[in-house]
């Protein structure tokens, strides 16, 4: 197990190195740079001023030199400066990470706590009206884009109550924090919940048809014991995989949700940084997301072993 862990950690480092190259060079392939955009905002282009500014920002240097500056800086803990705000990149990024992390965490919690139980119920009650109703809910969850759902929630709350949930950057209590994050987390987590529900249902249906489930019922085990102890425990692996993958995909949903609910999180910030071609922000942020995704995958693999004792990683 230890050797496996070391090998996985080494592979993770290699993956992250590869990702850093892809991030850096893909960003340079996108037409236009920060200087073009600054001049677009100024409504004119002056070649001499443009060259001066490119020199000032160091984006006139060969790409390989720029890459080395970035990577060596990262290894030294120097994340560079935002080209737009001219503040340290870390100072711009760090305060926004907990906001998005809380939102993502709550969305995943919403996804798991709604999706798994409803998926189980849907499977256990297969073919009933309840099953059909839940399948409609899950289908709508997969069909409705989170930005549309978000706008619908906002419009309804203004039209019905004359109120609008506004992001509170400094919640003082757990209740305030929940009130701040719950609605946008539900909007973004609805899709994940629907997906989780569908996967749980199909996985449960498969397991419920197994011989050992029939045996369990034959020896008189209660429905609850059969469904939750015997069946769910064996059906949960694909669900965990999906939730792990969803954690990575969540960033897309978070971008639009943060925009619609005007949440100053890291996802919206990333899009704005891309719009400005603010390389230090984009590179560091995407790298951070890559680290999170790689570790999420790693964690999911480890959870496999926890939930299924048959799985033991060896070298």
């Amino acid at each position: 197990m230890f050797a496996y862990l070391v090998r996985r950690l080494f592979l993770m480092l290699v993956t992250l190195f590869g990702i850093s190259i892809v991030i850096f060079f893909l960003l340079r392939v996108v037409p236009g740079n920060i200087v073009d955009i600054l001049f677009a905002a100024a409504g004119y282009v002056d070649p001499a001023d443009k060259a001066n500014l490119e020199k000032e920002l160091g984006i006139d240097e060969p790409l390989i030199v720029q890459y080395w500056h970035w990577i060596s800086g990262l290894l030294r803990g120097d994340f560079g400066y935002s080209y737009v705000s001219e503040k340290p990149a870390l100072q711009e990024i760090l305060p926004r990470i907990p906001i998005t992390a809380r939102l993502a965490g709550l969305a995943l919690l919403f996804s798991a706590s709604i999706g798994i139980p409803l998926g189980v119920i849907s499977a256990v009650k297969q073919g009933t009206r309840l099953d059909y109703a839940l399948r409609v809910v899950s289908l709508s969850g997969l069909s409705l884009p989170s930005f549309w759902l978000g706008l619908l929630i906002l419009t309804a709350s203004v039209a019905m109550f004359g109120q609008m949930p506004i992001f509170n950057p400094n919640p003082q209590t757990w209740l305030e924090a929940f009130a701040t994050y719950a609605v946008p987390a539900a909007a973004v987590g609805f899709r994940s919940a629907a997906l989780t529900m569908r996967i749980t249902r199909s996985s449960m249906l498969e397991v419920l048809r197994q011989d050992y489930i029939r045996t369990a019922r034959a020896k008189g085990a209660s429905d609850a014991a059969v469904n939750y102890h015997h069946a769910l425990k064996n059906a949960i692996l694909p669900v965990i995989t999906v939730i792990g993958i969803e954690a990575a995909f969540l960033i897309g949903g978070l971008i639009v949700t943060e925009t619609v609910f005007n949440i100053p999180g890291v996802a919206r910030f990333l899009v704005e940084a891309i719009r400005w071609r603010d390389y230090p922000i984009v590179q560091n942020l995407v790298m951070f997301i890559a680290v999170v995704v790689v570790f999420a995958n790693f964690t999911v693999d480890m959870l496999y072993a926890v939930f299924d004792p048959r799985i033991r990683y060896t070298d």
Partner: protein
Amino acid sequence: MRSVRALAATAALSLLAFSTIALAGEPKQGGILRMYHRDSPANASILEGATYSINVPFMGVFNNLVIYDQHVAQNSPDTLRPELAESWSWSGDNKKLTFKLHQGVKWHDGKPFTSADVKCTFDLLMGKSQQKLRQNPRKAWYNEVNDVTPNGDFEVSFDLKRPQPSLLAMLASGYTPIYPCHVSPADMRTHPVGTGPFKFVEFKANESIKLTRNPDYWKKGLPYLDGIEYTIITNRSTAILAFVAGKFDMTFPTHITIPLLKDIKSQAPNAICAVEPTNVSTNIIVNSTSAPFDNIDIRRAMAMALDRKAFVDILFEGQADIGGTMLPPPQGIWGMPKDKLETIPGYGPNVNASREEARKLMQKAGYGPDKHLAVKVSTRNLAEYRDPAVILIDQLKSIYIDGELDVVETANWFPKVARKDYMLGLNLTGNSVDDPDQSFYENYSCGSERNYTNYCNKEIEKLFDVQSQEIDVGKRKQLVWDIDKKLQEDVARPIIFHARAGTCWQPYVKGITIMSNSSYNGFRYEDVWLDK
């Protein structure tokens, strides 16, 4: 009939806004004005910006030498007021403009304001100082200024190469704040220091901009507000919903489109809304350096095929204006009168007759029903650009031109235009001062940085200088109209329409005036107050 109704509605709203100011009673001190901001500006340096995303939040941090009266909607030579300058005077030959400055004015960091700061600011703008602005989009405004000379601490003179009465108009623009000598241009981008009614507190990109009351403001008793907070909300639906729900006291100025205005009025009937021209024209830039638009006949045919009223009806429900380069009257000071405008080919009331003429020109150039001209219409990937471009393509079909939409990301737009990698472009031009010197020199003079098409006509350029030196406003107007007519006939940058937009605020917000011929100059907000 529709436009009459629109005018009546605008007049009623303006009257309502005026009566709100007049009947509001004694101003009250206190309160934070909460407004949403439509996007995150690049930085806080007004001198380096060219979008009112910078002017709106940061104009209150500064003062100008002179300013347009903030409570008269129409900027004109008659509404110029002294600000940091107590008074101004012209020399006998109109080549020297001298300002006497207010004494006892302090920068927000406590240092005294003097004539040296005025010199520093204009040396920066004219590119004469050691320190440089990163970007200097309005350098051309000061082409006629030889030097700015302090005469003691509280007097300063502008020495001109030739008379230019409209220099005062440029100085009164929201784009011309006075900067301090002791703060670098780089620091002004991140932490601006001014003499204005509000002090900069913080600017969090994509999040918020906060200003607080300057307790030592040199205008005693002002400002009334304790501060102004802008929450940056890029999603227009969210922003408007938040205004309707009462989370904001005011919308971002001129951010409300005409169709959206109806939604606001139905959901927040108490809101006060004003619709005014923005002095932003939607126009066509033509690449006349290469075929097929190097042929003047094709350029003229294209201009004659335009049905401007259709654009206005479709995009603005009739509430936009048709004119030439200068904003049309009554809001525009220098725009051609309707009868003169209609003598320009393509501006007449009979669109069908005009298109018939256009088809003849196209046939002369070798095109017709059996041989269509294929063109790409390039434009930026923003709704206010794309939507009129689609209508333009549809209209060009009537004269055997098959247009294809070429949507370009903002980052690539200006480089593409600069390297002449386009045939036709759908463009927006914002005029920050309703004055011919700003519009003509910036957009149409040979070699100007914002002359995107490199249009260059030395004869018209001479006329630019003639009108610029004319002191008599009446005579100058006649000259300006003739120049504007020639620019349209030359198809230099065919103007399709001048946009209008709405601004709304809650009834307890007092002292707001939306400028009717500029969306860049009315945001000092020193005597705005909250009646609650």
